[in-house]
């Protein structure tokens, strides 16, 4: 019988492992291990109707690209796109085969381990945190009677997954009651979809009513199938479908709660809800004065504010990258990652990814693509072989009919957009959170100056070490193409020198991730006490519909408990402890008057 050894700490950080060993030996992290044990003990089964639907759907076979063009794969272009498409199709086929095999075995479990910040990560590649087509295949193995209240949560879940359908507005923008009402309104169609999936009908018959593959298509059909069974059988129906509840920008939630800031806290639902049940008020703050339906959350507000800022700064070219003034989708990922310490470069990559995805869809529909690199060509003059011009140092020179031309790349548009968004968040969007980020970076800088490693413990006792050392490298000489010498540099360990830039850039991310992880540990422990089936994807909490209301309350309660003590003070004191006495510490950050218990009154905290 084959056995595999996998580290409890993903990434094999020797110093983190040593610190954890010590903490485990002293019995400090018992609760973290209990949380991990509970999460990995949940059994699952494959959602057979959805698997069958995916197999019947069978997209058109993609022709394998020519092998002679393999060398072009490394360069971006049509050959790389063809190979990407082909390989992703092959990978998907393999996943479906694997799912078929798992289905034959019945129950299965997902083993998990921790990353160095304490976040719980699934070990196998086949897990719930993957994309929609895999996520739609998961069901809890043990069901619970859905009940009347559970059915309402399931209806809200169906609506939330129906964002990509082209026969309705986007229901995920609605409140929970409105989502339930939306499902009731469209019940005949949703039941028809669910029945077709359960009966294994040809997917083409309901193709028109489904979201596209870029949206949550398979989770939507899984929800419809569950809904139709719940309606047919009644409140005794044992539901197994995992319902996802996502925190409203968890990074900002933690930072705002640490600063006890009421304004930023209100945008992410950690304050008392406003009258009328709306979660945020876009109209009474300095950020934005745009009217629109999409302005019901922080991302929507930031999208509108970005649109306005681009207008003010006359950056009209950048507005071509956005799909209207409320392009929440393009803004969401960068804004979310900003609070995890993302730089404009990282945010630009995320924007690029979305634009490329959109361009692929546009190509299929034969629409003009959004250009990311506008190239301007202009003439220059040359004296004694030296080109002169305003941008003489940043253009490439070429000649046409003996006339010199310079090609000047006017910045990378997604980067410029990311930069504008970064400044917007720093100056107007969330200045307090930005201040906290900078404070953490200062603490990391101070540690680097004194050649110390920043380290702190989470409230559950798990040591988190912000350790980044320069790698110990070795040069390998290999034979490359046509027997040419090719040097490869391989990291074989780490030196004692701290990698300052990485340590400073990563500190905010590690701190917020550690807070996220601590919240998850607390929620998992609470769920274990209540025997509530639970799953998580970092800041998303997942359970079945009968437990949905309880999960919502539990998460808020745990969040309030987590932030009872001041995390920022903890890290400040941890740094004070490791630095010599004469070191000048930055002043502690001032905190506001927000009560951490207020979050218990806001059901929109997770949605």
């Amino acid at each position, binding site marked *: *019988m*084959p*056995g*595999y*050894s*996998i*580290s*409890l*700490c993903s990434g094999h950080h020797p110093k983190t*492992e040593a610190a*954890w*060993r010590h903490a*485990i*030996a002293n*019995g400090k992290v*018992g609760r973290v*291990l209990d949380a*991990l*044990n509970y999460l*990995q*003990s949940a*059994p*699952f089964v494959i959602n057979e109707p959805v698997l069958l639907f995916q197999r019947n759907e069978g997209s058109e076979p993609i022709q394998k690209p020519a*092998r*002679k063009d393999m060398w072009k794969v490394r360069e971006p272009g049509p050959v790389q796109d063809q190979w990407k498409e082909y390989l992703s199709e092959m990978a998907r086929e*393999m996943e479906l*085969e*694997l799912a078929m*095999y*798992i289905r034959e*075995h*019945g*129950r*299965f*479990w*997902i*083993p*998990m381990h921790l990353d160095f910040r304490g976040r719980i990560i699934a*070990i*196998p*590649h*086949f*897990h719930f945190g993957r994309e929609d087509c895999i996520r739609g295949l998961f069901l809890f193995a043990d069901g619970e009677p859905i009940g009347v209240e559970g059915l309402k949560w399931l209806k809200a879940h169906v609506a939330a997954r129906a964002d990509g359908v082209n026969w309705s507005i986007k229901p995920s923008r609605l409140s929970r009651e409105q989502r339930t009402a939306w499902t009731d309104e469209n019940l005949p169609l949703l039941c028809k979809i669910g029945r077709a999936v359960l009966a294994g009908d040809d997917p083409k018959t309901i193709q028109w009513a489904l979201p596209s593959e870029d949206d949550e298509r398979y989770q939507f059909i899984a929800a419809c199938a569950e809904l139709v069974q719940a309606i047919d059988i009644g409140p005794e129906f044992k539901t197994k479908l995992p319902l996802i509840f996502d925190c409203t920008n968890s990074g900002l939630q933690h930072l705002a709660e640490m600063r006890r800031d009421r304004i930023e806290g209100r945008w992410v639902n950690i304050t008392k809800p406003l009258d009328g049940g709306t979660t945020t008020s876009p109209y009474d703050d300095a950020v934005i004065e745009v009217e629109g339906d999409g302005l019901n959350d922080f991302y929507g507000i930031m999208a509108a504010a970005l649109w306005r800022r681009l207008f003010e700064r006359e950056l009209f070219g950048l507005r071509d990258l956005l799909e209207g003034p409320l392009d929440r989708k393009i803004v969401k990922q960068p804004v979310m990652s900003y609070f995890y310490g993302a730089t404009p470069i990282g945010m630009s990559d995320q924007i690029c990814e979305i634009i490329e995805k959109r361009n692929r869809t546009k190509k299929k529909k034969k629409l003009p693509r959004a250009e990311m690199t506008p190239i301007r060509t202009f003439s220059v003059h040359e004296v004694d072989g030296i080109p002169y011009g305003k941008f003489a140092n940043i253009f490439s020179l070429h000649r046409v009919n003996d006339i010199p031309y310079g090609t000047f790349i006017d910045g990378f548009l997604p980067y410029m957009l990311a930069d504008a968004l970064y400044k917007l968040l720093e100056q107007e969007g969330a200045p307090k959170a930005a201040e906290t980020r900078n404070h953490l970076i200062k603490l990391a800088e101070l540690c680097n100056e004194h050649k110390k490693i920043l380290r702190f413990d989470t409230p559950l006792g798990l040591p988190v070490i912000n350790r980044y050392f320069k790698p110990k490298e070795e040069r390998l000489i290999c034979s490359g193409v046509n027997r040419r010498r090719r040097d490869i540099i391989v990291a074989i360990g780490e030196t004692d020198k701290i990698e300052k830039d990485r340590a400073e850039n990563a500190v905010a991310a590690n701190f917020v991730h550690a807070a996220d992880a601590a919240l998850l540990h607390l929620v998992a422990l609470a769920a274990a006490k209540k025997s509530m089936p639970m799953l998580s994807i970092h800041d998303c909490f997942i359970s079945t519909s009968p437990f949905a209301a309880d999960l919502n309350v539990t998460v808020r309660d745990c969040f309030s408990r987590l932030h009872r003590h001041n995390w920022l003070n903890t890290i400040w004191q941890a740094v004070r402890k490791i630095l010599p006495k004469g070191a000048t510490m930055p002043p502690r950050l001032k905190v506001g008057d927000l009560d951490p218990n207020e979050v218990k009154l806001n059901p929109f905290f997770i949605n």
Partner: protein
Amino acid sequence: MAIGQTVAASDRLGADRETGNKTYRDTAEVIGNNLVPHCRDRKLRIEVGDWAIERLRTLPIFSLQSDLTPMAAGLSRWQQTNGFDANPDTLALTAELGDVLGDFMVEQIINKPLLSPMFEPPISLDASQQGWRAWLFHFTMFRPSPQD
């Protein structure tokens, strides 16, 4: 055997540089290069490759193209003419290899904990039961083979 599989599966290795078509001579040369990398005599390298191909053909997973396609069967082989003319009769993989590799892949995917989930509950990490030194940072996952 590894180089035999690589050459047989590749469109580039074992192909004539000018025409781009696979030939017996170039296939034998690639295999010979791997077996006697320091040999400077090209003819000798090809002869070594020829001998290796004959040995590989005794295995069920290898065959010559002429054995698989009747069109090439009438063409003379290099070892018959003992010349260096390009011959389209090249080393090929039989369908059996595909089956062997397919089964191997499936077994690997199913048994790899990094790819597929487990079919029994994971071991609970409890320091008090097992002693923290015993399992610390390395908990072992056992999984049955597909035959079980």
